[in-house]
């Protein structure tokens, strides 16, 4: 499991999750992801290279959303594969974390 970050617009960070966000994956990225959500107010979590997500991965994302929201920041999910998006929708995660498939729209959503 890998986490890559880049600033794609002024004040806007894209965090790309690569691999499987299963329990082992969640353990691998929990600390760097916690640091990230604790230090960014405009965060796009790029899921386009995420192969799998289960409840522990959802927990990582949801707690990240709470952390960003507590600082009056914004966080969205970007372009998950269909199988991953199905889990996000089935679990209701999309109700606390918007899922967007257009990058410009995602940048606008977190920049607002």
């Amino acid at each position, binding site marked *: 499991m890998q986490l890559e970050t880049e600033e794609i617009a002024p004040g806007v960070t894209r965090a790309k999750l690569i691999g499987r966000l299963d*329990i*082992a994956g969640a353990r691998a990225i929990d600390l760097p992801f916690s640091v990230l959500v604790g230090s960014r107010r405009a965060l796009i979590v790029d899921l386009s290279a995420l192969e799998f997500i289960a*409840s522990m991965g959802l927990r990582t994302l*949801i707690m990240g959303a709470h952390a960003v929201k507590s600082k009056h920041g914004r966080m969205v999910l970007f372009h998950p594969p269909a199988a991953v998006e199905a*889990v996000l929708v089935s*679990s209701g995660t999309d109700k606390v974390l918007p899922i967007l498939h257009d990058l410009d729209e995602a940048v606008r959503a977190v920049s607002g």
Partner: protein
Amino acid sequence: MASDLPSPTEPGPAGTFRLRTERSAVGLERLGLWVDEIAARLTLGVAVEYALRLCLEEAVANVVMHGVPVPGTDANWIALAVEPVADRLRLTVTDRCAAFDPRSAPEPDIAGSDDRVGGLGIHLMRRYARDVFYAREGPENHLTMTIPA
């Protein structure tokens, strides 16, 4: 006891895949590799492999994180079986922790302000498995799920 079970990478009699693994993070990592092996051997489609991986991971994670050992009982392992049956896969997860029916877990409330997010695992198992059955047989919990193949 592990010696009376087939190798983790070999299907047992009647095509059933079996794995006996540690009730720990190591066991969870071994589970992931085992699912890789089953998916390759059965040439599972992407959606079926996803459902298989998700249901097994959620069930095993629940036992690893929440299972309560019973004094005098060896609860340090989890036994798994995946059996192709007609148009579906039958998954069985067996452990020797205290009796617990994961179907009794409350529905998740992820929108709350509380950072604790629980109940997602069983919610996803119900979503991805056609059936989820639980039985307590002697000292063992048996969780059985079927997923369309």
